[in-house]
């Protein structure tokens, strides 16, 4: 077994080799990174992530900022000449990082997503006001965007009370399988 295939086998990322997302087709043309609007804020560019996944460098990929900074704009997936769903790979990596409890390199982004889902789990719909307050509480950054939030409130853009889904059972079923 070559060193590379040993790395792949040890990484648990080998799922990719059998899936419809074929990272191994990447020939490093860097079109994804050239078009990525948030590449400037990433520690590894999307093409580097593709290479790292191919090589099975699981820990470095899962603890990267890149997977959390990715805005899911799908520019990379749309333009890839090898038809690799790069944004789909990013999703898969984030899901894996969450499932395996890897501490996110962008803590606030991960907190935002979990707070957003909490709001859905509670009401069935996102109640923006309480979701924002809860996010602020979790991050401790009460004063960031306070003025903006207040202005939204005075303009009638934030509803005081949540609207709710009536079929609680169906909602609960949707969350079945998600821990926490």
């Amino acid at each position, binding site marked *: 077994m070559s060193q590379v295939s040993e790395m792949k086998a040890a990484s648990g990322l080998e799922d990719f080799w059998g899936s419809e997302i074929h990272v191994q087709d990447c020939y490093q043309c860097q079109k994804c990174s050239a078009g990525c*609007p*948030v590449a*400037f*804020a990433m520690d590894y560019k999307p093409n580097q992530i593709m290479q790292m996944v191919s090589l099975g460098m699981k820990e470095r990929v899962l603890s990267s900022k890149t997977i959390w*900074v990715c*805005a*899911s*704009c*799908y*520019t990379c*997936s*749309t333009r890839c000449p090898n038809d690799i*769903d790069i*944004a789909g790979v990013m*999703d898969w990596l*984030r*899901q894996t990082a*969450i*499932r395996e409890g890897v501490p996110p390199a*962008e803590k*606030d*982004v991960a*907190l*935002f*997503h*979990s707070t*957003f*889902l909490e*709001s*859905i789990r509670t009401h*069935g*719909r*996102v*109640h*923006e*006001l309480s979701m*924002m307050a809860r*996010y602020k509480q979790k991050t401790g950054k009460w004063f*960031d*965007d306070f003025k*903006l939030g207040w*202005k*939204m409130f005075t*303009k*009638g*853009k*934030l*509803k005081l009370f949540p*609207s709710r*889904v*009536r*079929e609680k059972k*169906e*909602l609960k*079923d*949707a*969350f*079945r*399988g*998600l821990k926490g």
Partner: protein
Amino acid sequence: MKVSYYPGCALHGTAREYDESTKAVGTILGVELGELPDWNCCGASSAHVTDPSLAHNLVARNLAIAEKEGRDLLVPCAACYSRFKAGEREMEEGTHRLNFRILNLLEFLVEDGLLERMKGMIKRPLNGLKIVSYYGCLLVRPPKVTGAKKYENPEEMDRLLGLLGAEAIPWSYKTDCCGGSLVLTRTDIVRQLTRKLIDKALEAGAEAIAVACPLCHSNLDTRQEEISREAGQDYRIPILYITELIGLSLGHPDTGKWFRRHFVDPGELLASKGLV
């Protein structure tokens, strides 16, 4: 004519004026928008970055309700639309075909002779208004999911603006990202992306930017004060929902109420064109 209507969470909150103007346009054009009963959140980015089955379940419940209603489903929020189209694709792979179509706002408006009807109802053509159309990401991408043909240079909104009498200016940033769901978390990234979009719109000669997505609107409209502080120059370009522009052009009485909810007041610009 009646369609099912999925407002989504933002249209019941931060994007109220998009909800109100969409319904107003529906009423004027004689289309009844029946809100999907007991709809739930589509899950947006947060569900699909977290867990694929949760993302699927949240979408599937809404689609099942819509299937019972059996009418085409209008989804004005680009993010919800994108999740629904992704869900539709997953179902088709599992060989289930929906008995209705999922339409974003632009697809809805170009359907079934609505444009013709609109054309005949214009009371106040938007003459002299120089505007760029901004589609953002999720109305068009990924094209495999949305079915968009001209995904690098979409034109539906430009055509619509032209029909209303406005001057839709071509520019190269129609589908560049505004930062979307990083809205509360990496506001530095959002400011950088939106500043670029606004700079490029101004460079093209636009006086306003037309949008059809609540996240694009929020990111572009609400951060201009901060961008101005950072840049040391005054940014104040109105961001208008396409439905607000249609409402304005068709003489709807509530436009003032919608515009008052914007951070950047479009009143001055519209007054200078004799439109309010």
